């Protein structure tokens, strides 16, 4: 439990740092972003391995549900606002995270079958309970299934360090939320105006970005 709390704390801290690194003078630093994403991944792995060992029930998800309406407007507004300061080249740490969710899904051989079963079981139960509705809206469910199928059929490139399968098994939601958040930003919403002086966009970006951070923090806390 201590380990889990610590891992959660570090994940939250890392997200906060990632967010703040965007505001830094001189722009997003690639090396820093990479390091933050590495720590986040380690924290996640630690959290999950601790969780699996502790056999914790999924009850912990319940108190952390976010209502749907909060997610959609901030996500859209924030995606547009945040697409602006990002340039096409900015790789940011998020790709690391986005890559891991499908990749971990792709590697069932690596982990024990039990976590995989747990994930399927939990997803259905959580959807029915509505516990994760806030994090996994129903219209996205089909997309996730498609991703899983795609993921399962493709090979796992060796580039990234292997992440345990239980990472995906018990952890689908954070990964997906992060993936959705940052893929959307990275895939560069073409409609978003690319340039705006930082002074101007600081104000409109503040509010939706804060909501994003709140959601992310809530997401991390959810586990």
């Amino acid at each position, binding site marked *: 439990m201590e380990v889990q709390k*610590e891992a959660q704390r*570090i994940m939250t*801290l890392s997200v906060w*740092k990632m967010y703040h690194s965007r505001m830094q*003078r*001189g*722009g997003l*630093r*690639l*090396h*820093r972003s*990479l*390091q933050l994403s*590495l*720590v986040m991944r*380690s*924290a996640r792995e*630690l959290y999950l391995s601790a969780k699996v060992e502790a056999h914790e029930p999924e009850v912990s998800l319940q108190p952390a549900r976010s209502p749907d309406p909060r997610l959609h407007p901030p996500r859209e507004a924030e995606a547009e606002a945040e697409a*602006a*300061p990002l*340039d096409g*080249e900015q*790789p940011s740490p998020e*790709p*690391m995270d*986005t*890559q891991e969710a499908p990749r971990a899904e792709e590697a069932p051989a690596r982990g024990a079958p039990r976590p995989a079963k747990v994930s399927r079981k939990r997803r259905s139960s959580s959807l029915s309970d509505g516990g994760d509705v806030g994090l996994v809206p129903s219209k996205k469910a089909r997309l996730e299934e498609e991703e899983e199928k795609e993921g399962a059929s493709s090979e796992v*490139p060796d*580039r*990234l360090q292997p992440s345990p399968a239980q990472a995906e098994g018990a952890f689908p939601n954070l990964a997906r939320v992060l993936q959705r958040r940052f893929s959307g930003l*990275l895939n560069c919403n073409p409609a978003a105006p*690319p*340039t*705006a*002086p*930082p002074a101007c*966009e600081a104000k409109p970006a503040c509010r939706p970005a804060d909501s994003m951070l709140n959601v992310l923090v809530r997401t991390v806390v959810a586990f």
Partner: protein
Amino acid sequence: MNYPDESTYGNKADIISTVEFNHTGELLATGDKGGRVVIFQREQESKNQVHRRGEYNVYSTFQSHEPEFDYLKSLEIEEKINKIRWLPQQNAAYFLLSTNDKTVKLWKVSERDKRPEGYNLKDEEGRLRDPATITTLRVPVLRPMDLMVEATPRRVFANAHTYHINSISVNSDYETYMSADDLRINLWNFEITNQSFNIVDIKPANMEELTEVITAAEFHPHHCNTFVYSSSKGTIRLCDMRASALCDRHTKFFEEPEDPSNRSFFSEIISSISDVKFSHSGRYIMTRDYLTVKVWDLNMENRPIETYQVHDYLRSKLCSLYENDCIFDKFECVWNGSDSVIMTGSYNNFFRMFDRNTKRDVTLEASRENSKPRAILKPRKVCVGGKRRKDEISVDSLDFSKKILHTAWHPSENIIAVAATNNLYIFQDKVN
């Protein structure tokens, strides 16, 4: 070990971000966060002033880089000087390269101690004379004037880096130099500013697969075809430009297997190499990661030949250091002129020297309170155990805001320059 003398030049308005002696040690350049370069010159030793054995005084100050704004990406480009590298002197003028995150500039620093006087068409103040009043013709003559040191930008090498420049290195051919950012290294000719050759590119086709970045790069001191670059994964690659135009395939790959007993949550980020330096001999390379300095033999790739613990007592504090961002600090390391001693910085304004031959090491502190001019620096010690002796400082009392990231060692003498935030300390070895 040395017990150096000290002269301090303090109160810079901005934080010093780079320090570099020139090839003779006569000049010492510093760059700061405000984009300024300050050059110090060593006083000629004179018989009259035996006590002032070659102190360094300000020689020239100029604004190298200004803050810029990239409108296309909506990004501000910091004016902070990341690195300064001197060119070897070939005439009366001095040349140096200074770089910020995006642009490298070649500066010429020259002296002017004569000025022409006696113009025909202008008066002494420079105003044009009425042609009707000019009745005689004379030749202007050069007359002595107060020494003026002027710095002029001779070349600007811009728009070649998408990511942030972390290193520049002058080639031993003195015709080319390289600049390295997180993912690419470019080779420049000093005479050509509108193009450069890309010699290393580690950007993956899919940025989502990015796992490591380039952290530092340097040319071999004698072989103009050889250079090394370090990565965030703790590896060093040595490349030979004769092998191919694009040096994506290394000639040598230096990596030490990880010690499993040291594996921790933050292992990956503390193994990132923050600086790499060839020895003067060209036989060794030295690397600095967060907790150690390592010396590698170019002929042995599987492990370093020497490892020095800089501040191992921080290993148990990595989580706190992550919280306060100190874990991301990039320390540099330097060789002395004979490659027998290496030096690097730490926290609490401490810096460390390691004698490679005697295996002795010392911790010294750069601070005004503890040093007066011509005072001998006292070795410091950090207490790691339970009982703290009188002179020791406990790990929890260390001031992590006082960090020494940048140091320099005179090429031939025991004179060191230590940058402590916005103060520059110059220590000289005691005679006899």
